[in-house]
């Protein structure tokens, strides 16, 4: 594959997971149950890493990491699987008090990402004022506009992170990455906010082939912000990864039902999460054929 003389950044899921250290702050792109870097999350489940601070518009990425005891603190505005509104593992983690939580409004969270992505200490927004977000995050401070309006605003601190993981439709071996679906989510902001960003993708392509896949503006993430690239076909499974594939609703339902019951969860783990990514994909295919 031609890479224009630039060093290839292609890694395996295991190499990415092995680069994490306990206690790190880990950002995860996507939104709810949409375009989540699930193959990389699954790889993290297979490592001894723990005590993570996870920053995510949460979905089953958060649920899986909570279930595996990897999370010390979660920074989020919600955890949902969209068509299944509530995430059982996240609920259980909260209800048993096993994780700490920083709970922001969705817009506050975005401003925290914008601040981190642009090396600002904070960005001001009115969102959050008057709500209990201010009560449960007593460290949040407000600023007053220095202009005539004198308006009070929340100073949302930069959501800095050690490592970010995002999943894109296409990438090249240099780390440039392209989304082909209808929504970029905040993935470019995660990539810029982190000290080190890893992109997983459905398919690695030659740089020259990006133009065949989508318009110039679909090149969301630049190699300047990317430390490593992983090709993980079906790697967002079971979350939505349009236009490559939609959410696997049947499998998500199985996940949700299993996650809500310890015995079923043990069986789910045994069947789907006891091997590597290739074993996961094989097990999913076998399950899909059985359920047909």
């Amino acid at each position, binding site marked *: 594959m031609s890479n224009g003389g630039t060093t290839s950044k292609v890694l395996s899921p295991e190499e990415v997971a092995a680069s994490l250290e306990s206690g790190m702050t880990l950002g995860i792109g996507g939104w709810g149950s949409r375009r989540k870097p699930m193959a990389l999350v699954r790889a993290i489940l297979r490592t001894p890493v723990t005590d993570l601070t996870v920053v995510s518009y949460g979905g089953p990425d958060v649920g899986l990491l909570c279930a595996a005891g990897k999370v010390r603190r979660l920074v989020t505005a919600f955890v949902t699987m969209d068509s299944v509104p509530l995430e059982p593992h996240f609920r259980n983690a909260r209800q048993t008090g096993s994780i700490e939580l920083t709970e922001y*409004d969705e*817009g506050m969270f975005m401003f925290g990402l914008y601040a981190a992505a642009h090396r600002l200490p904070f960005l001001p927004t009115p*969102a959050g004022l008057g*709500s209990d977000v201010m009560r*449960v995050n007593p460290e949040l401070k407000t600023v007053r506009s220095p202009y005539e309006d004198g308006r009070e605003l929340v100073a949302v601190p930069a959501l800095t992170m050690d490592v970010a993981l995002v999943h894109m439709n296409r990438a090249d071996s240099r780390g440039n990455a392209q989304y082909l679906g209808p929504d970029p989510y*905040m993935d470019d902001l995660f990539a810029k906010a982190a000290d080190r960003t890893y992109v997983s993708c459905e398919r690695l392509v030659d740089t020259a082939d990006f133009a065949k896949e989508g318009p110039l503006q679909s090149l969301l993430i630049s190699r300047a912000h990317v430390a490593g690239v992983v090709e993980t076909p079906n790697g967002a499974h079971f979350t939505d990864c349009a236009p490559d594939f939609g959410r696997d609703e049947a499998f998500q339902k199985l996940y949700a039902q299993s996650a809500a019951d310890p015995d079923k969860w043990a069986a789910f783990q045994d069947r789907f999460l006891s091997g590597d990514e290739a074993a996961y994909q094989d097990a999913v295919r076998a399950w899909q054929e059985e359920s047909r």
Partner: protein
Amino acid sequence: MSTLTSITRAEVCAAACADLFRGDGEIVAAAVAGFVPMLGSRLARATFEPDLLTTDGGPALSAEPVPLGRPAATAEGWLPFRDHLWLVLNGRRHVVMGPSQIDAHGNTNISCIGDWERPARQLLGVRGGPGNTLLNTTSYWVPKHSTRVFTEKVDMVSGVGWDRGAHEIRAVVSNLAVLDFGTPDRRMRLRSVHPGVRVEDVVAATGFELVVPDEVPETRLPDDEELRVMREVLDPKGLREREVPA
């Protein structure tokens, strides 16, 4: 009055949700709370509020109001999540959310039940509730009106009410009634009861003291054209009926 077959409660609710947008003009209707308000926003656009902008449930602003569950055949705009969040600040937006708890001033909770530090039941999280309510016109849809939802106090204020600086909490549509805040101190008031519902049913299903005027009218029925648009165009599969208990 309608000459069509009997009008369902869900259809009354959808028309009441459409009425939420009356007079809104050229703003985005973000009716994220369920099928009924989503249908209501598209019904408003298809009838008396043609300048309204509506989505197909995804990031496409549809050129025409589209049937529930269908993608926009033609998009007139693009509104990915980040632009929704910027639009919250811009203000040209009316959101309809579904509260797990709501109090007499319109403070709402979708985050968790019980103490936030260790909740008895973790729900979604605050989502965009704080910004939506502070900066945009907000209404609510409650498919099952009960004292569990209409509570004296909410456990976590994820959406601010009139007494906490809300931009405008316009109204609450439930499966029983329409409620607004048209009182001097902005306490929730019973505006109308749906046909077949008694005032005392609503009072009994509400966990705080509701302002009840001497005369409580019935919620209006959708007219023939609205029924036709709902049944034949916007919701031929009848998704609205699934959301409202019979």
